[in-house]
């Protein structure tokens, strides 16, 4: 996916909300920052187990 398409797909998540051009500009800058941050964290977390989110009742025994 091209970068412009990726950005458009992220902004589409906000499509129900009418934002001013200045807000959109600021949001785009932060999205680009976040993409860089996630890429760095992905590299940093290589080989680390995925976090387990399963929740089991504490009052039941197997």
């Amino acid at each position: 996916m091209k970068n412009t398409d990726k950005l458009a797909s992220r902004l589409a998540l906000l499509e129900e909300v009418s934002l001013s051009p200045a807000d959109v500009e600021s949001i785009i800058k932060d999205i680009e920052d976040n993409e860089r941050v996630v890429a760095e964290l992905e590299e940093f977390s290589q080989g680390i187990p995925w976090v387990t989110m399963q929740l089991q009742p504490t009052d039941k025994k197997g």
Partner: protein
Amino acid sequence: MAPADICELNLAELSRLIAARALSSSEAVKAALTRLERLEDKLNAFITIPRERALAEAKEAENEIVRGHYRGPLHGIPVTIKDLFETAGVRTTAGSKILAEWVPETDSAVVERLHAAGAIIIGKTNLDEFGHGGTSTLSHFGPVHNPWNIDRIAGGSSGGSAAAVATGIGPLSYGTETGSSVRRPASYCGIVGFKPTFGIISRHGSFRGAWSQDHVGLFARSVKDITLGLDPVAGYDARDPASVHQETPAYTARLDANMKGQRVGVLRRFLEGVKPEVRQAFDAALQVLAGAGCEIGDLDVPELNYAAMTSMMTSSAESAGINRRWFRERHQDFVPHVSRGIAVGMTITASEYLTVQRARHRIREALRATYEKVDIIASPTTGKVAPLLSDGVKGNGDDTRHASYNHSNLLRFPSMLGLPGCSLPCGMNTENLPIGMQLIGAWFADQTVLNMAFAYQSATDWHTRRPAIASA
């Protein structure tokens, strides 16, 4: 006793006088309300002041005590709470326009426990909207001002609570922390701020900033007052999924200033950008801890380079999840900076969030290994003193966007990992602005943190300084 003198009393002293019936709860509450009303134009620390209700409750507490039904150290004591805690019959705004007139029907867990302990809530304090900020300037009700210099910020998001305690408007306040919202304002306002291990205090009925990082915390002027305020509110609550089973809280009874052999680690590489005046005060504080018997040593935990960005991404995604519906329906009613932050959070995908949680896990494991070697990690709480209001939201100087040895990692890792942390005053700069030191312990080593803070305060008098505005 003159009302102004009552406001100068610590919780421990005030409590002793009320228990002995040498001072009434009504006198204490009236004194705190009088001071609040005198200073509110300058500080803007409060959103709602339930004056008549507080006075009626004080009278009731007074009658109970006279009849011999003394409930404990908070009975009849004027306290304040951040306006994120739901209060039955008293509006709860979370600093927002959206909830500006909302009156809950039930109390939050903290408020339930405060009522049970006999505390009198005299005011609900101002904050960054829904706790989203580090300045207390992002409130629908206007910015909180720092009592040491009203042109400066109080820090956030629990800035109103910190400003209130610093000026003697009640000896104790309850706030919340997701990133640094207890420790930072405590540092900027020259008081003690403590947030316990994740799960120690129930968050039921308090608004969430980011569920995996939110904590309830306390503000007071002494460590002993923190423990007196912590004992009645700590404990398991099934209504908070993060709540942990724990023995009956006895933090006050176990306060112990004996520090012999306690190991204190210092992450020196993260202090390079810290202002010289702050480093100087911190180094002097380490000498005090060494004098009290602590073994001080340097540490390096390079994984912490990633702490601020991991914490920020987690907060951003979780707060977007929490505020999603309101944002879609009423985004124009949010404070603009908060609204933009939620919008950005809504664009973080599930797989990105999970990647961030892997990074968080790696940092947690690094800290787990670190706490095999030390009991406490000590650092300046913030890299500089309270910035000017005119510097805006960037004034704190945090960097949550880059992996590096910047100090903001030290501010953010305790809440991200759920570690107990205490900020306490350790100096003043040449402009008479407070400097804070933070002590961070391992999971459930809350007593160790409190004991070390207590030992430090037993050997120093920084916590006895008061802003001039309080007595003017």
